[in-house]
């Protein structure tokens, strides 16, 4: 019997379910390790060497090195865990969220001040805007 996943038709959205969590386990646990100041320092000193201590896929490591958060999410990352990379880089949550939208930091901030991204046209993939 297949599982009920009614959330695959929401545009620009990846739901972090048990299956994604399974794929992203080591990626997310790597992120979690950055909560310790010592680990942040070691990661900053040599990112590749630090990542190689984790049994992550090469794709996951590359996505982290490129700070490509959309790619990280596609590979099982969860935003609350990925936020630890942003914290290490000195980025705010708004800067991180904005980085996934294709907007500049200023454009994203202005969109939020203007009331946020509208729901119209953003409910279903392929929906007419």
């Amino acid at each position, binding site marked *: 019997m297949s599982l009920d996943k*009614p*959330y695959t038709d*929401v*545009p*620009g*959205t*990846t*739901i*972090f*379910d*048990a299956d994604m*969590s399974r794929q*992203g*386990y080591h990626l*997310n*646990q790597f*992120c*979690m390790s*950055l*909560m310790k100041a010592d680990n*942040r320092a070691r990661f900053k000193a040599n990112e590749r060497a630090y990542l190689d201590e984790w049994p992550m896929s090469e794709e996951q490591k590359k996505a982290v090195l490129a700070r490509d*958060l*959309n790619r990280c*999410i596609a590979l099982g990352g*969860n*935003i*609350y*865990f990925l*936020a*630890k990379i*942003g*914290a*290490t880089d000195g980025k*705010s*949550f*708004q800067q*991180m*969220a*904005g980085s*996934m*939208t*294709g907007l500049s930091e200023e454009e*994203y901030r202005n*969109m*939020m*001040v203007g*009331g*946020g*991204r*509208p*729901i119209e046209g*953003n*409910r*279903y993939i392929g929906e007419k805007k």
Partner: protein
Amino acid sequence: MARISASVYTSHVPAVGAALDLGKTGEPYWQAVFKGYDFSKQWLKDQKPDVIFLVYNDHANAFSLDIIPTFAIGTAPEFAVADEGWGPRPVPKVIGHPRLAAHIAQSVIQDDFDLTIVNKMDVDHGLTVPLSLMCGQPQAWPCPVIPFAVNVVQYPVPSGRRCYMLGKAIRKAIESYDEPLNVQIWGTGGMSHQLQGPRAGLINKEWDQAFLDRLIAEPEKLAAMPHIDYVREAGSEGIELVMWLIARGAMNDVNGGKPPTVRHRFYHVPASNTAVGHLILENN
């Protein structure tokens, strides 16, 4: 016996904590948020609760992917403030109420809700930002707090209905406690927001306002709303709103009593990526 006197609902946006901690509260951007809580701060002082039962979620701070409890009750004498990666917030540690927490755990588990009991846990912005919004910047929080963490990070999260029924079981537990405590129950998180992917920044004001209306007037029907409606309409992180139904399920009117008084209601967009919603309901 202990009783639940009121429920409080509020977003717990991390940037709100940062604004307070970095002294930005005077900026117009943040003034627009904090002014919604001026009434609430005075109200809380006047109410003098003995204990706050605070429903929130951890955001990959106390719980990694090693262990993912759906419902976790904090039974410790105290809880440290988590370092979420930016350093711990400079706020007081949280004093628990181990005796009442253990009593609630015993009662609620016997009522078929399989809680995880947590004797050691740091608490993150999900818990401390609501306290900051409601109490300002005191040297110590005004009363003990029982942290109640709900998994809303990894799907499937508990359903609205499950949360609502859990609220009823928590109420029953509190009402059978043998000290005459004035207990408040708080539900936190939301409102509409999405922090991930190309749809990040989604806000749905109409949906949020309708959620507030229905939470007040028809919570049982609201509890039947499926997860997908939250995700589609209020953003992937808008799902946090299921936690508000735990607090709502603990109120008098849905357990054979009178309707609550809506003491305060506030809504504002934006705080960082998020719509801020806030409600105070007093039992009659």
